[in-house]
């Protein structure tokens, strides 16, 4: 350890504000990027599933219409 006490570690030789600002913003930005990427992946899967459901419904409706016309 280069720092004797915890408060010295937070103080960073007088540069504490700038050092923790840098590390804090980096952590926040990276966290947002990671979480939004994971969320985006789930969203893509959900969207495809929705589309498939809609297409299946359309197909059923068309089949029924065909049946009604024929009968």
């Amino acid at each position, binding site marked *: 350890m280069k720092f004797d006490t915890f408060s010295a570690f937070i103080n960073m030789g007088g540069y504490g504000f700038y050092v923790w600002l840098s590390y804090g913003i980096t952590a926040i930005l*990276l966290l947002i990027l*990671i979480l939004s990427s994971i969320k985006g*992946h789930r969203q893509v899967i959900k*969207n*495809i599933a929705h589309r498939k459901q809609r297409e299946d419904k359309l197909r059923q409706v068309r089949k029924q219409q065909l049946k009604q016309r024929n009968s």
Partner: protein
Amino acid sequence: MWKWLHPYANPEVSYHFAGKILPWLSALAALLLSIGIIWALAFAPADYQQGDSFRIFYIHVPAASLSMGIYLGMAIAAFISLVWQFKLADASATAMAPVGATFTAIALITGAAWGKPMWGTWWIWDARLTSELILLFLYLGVIALQNAFEDKNLAGKAAGILTLVGVINLPIIKYSVEWWNTLHQGSTISKLGKPSMSVEMLWPFLFCFLGFIFLVSVIICIRFRSEILARNSLRPWVRTLVLQCLTQEKTNEV
């Protein structure tokens, strides 16, 4: 000789390969970054001139060089996609853009927070800072173009051309500290020859740098997989995969 690469041109194979390496990359990124950051913050020596503000270096420099590295990767992918119409290259370029933009923003913000105590100002319109800001605008332009068209192929083409034009900015950023008089200090790490920093500072830097590289690959992998799914949503293999994912989620909820 390059035949082993051919199967990876298949989106399905690429999707599963990216999924397989994802946990390993994540573990490496977490391990290297936690070692590197703790080392940089608590155990590395303070600089004899800049004191403890030098600790910003351990994220500023990796972020800055990765912002340029990701752009180069994106440009290569854009070139391959434009010339050979290779669709996976376009998907990977789309996956890289937001990651690169974030790292450019990190480089600019940490640079400002380092500049304030060292130079006395958050921002100055000098060559290095301005060209890095232009890099951020290039990334934002590329992202905007990628989302501007409903047709993904057209969007990829437009964004790819902007990406290739923007490559001119990379040497300008790299050599700006040599070509012009600037407040920004010269590079601390030189690839050829001995690094001008002490070993005690070099090791935590290498851990941070490698950790960030792995983190970047993790995020690009995740986004690349989403892109593949979105672009192949009509294929049967995607359909069955989506069904599997959803049923798995439902059983997890129960």
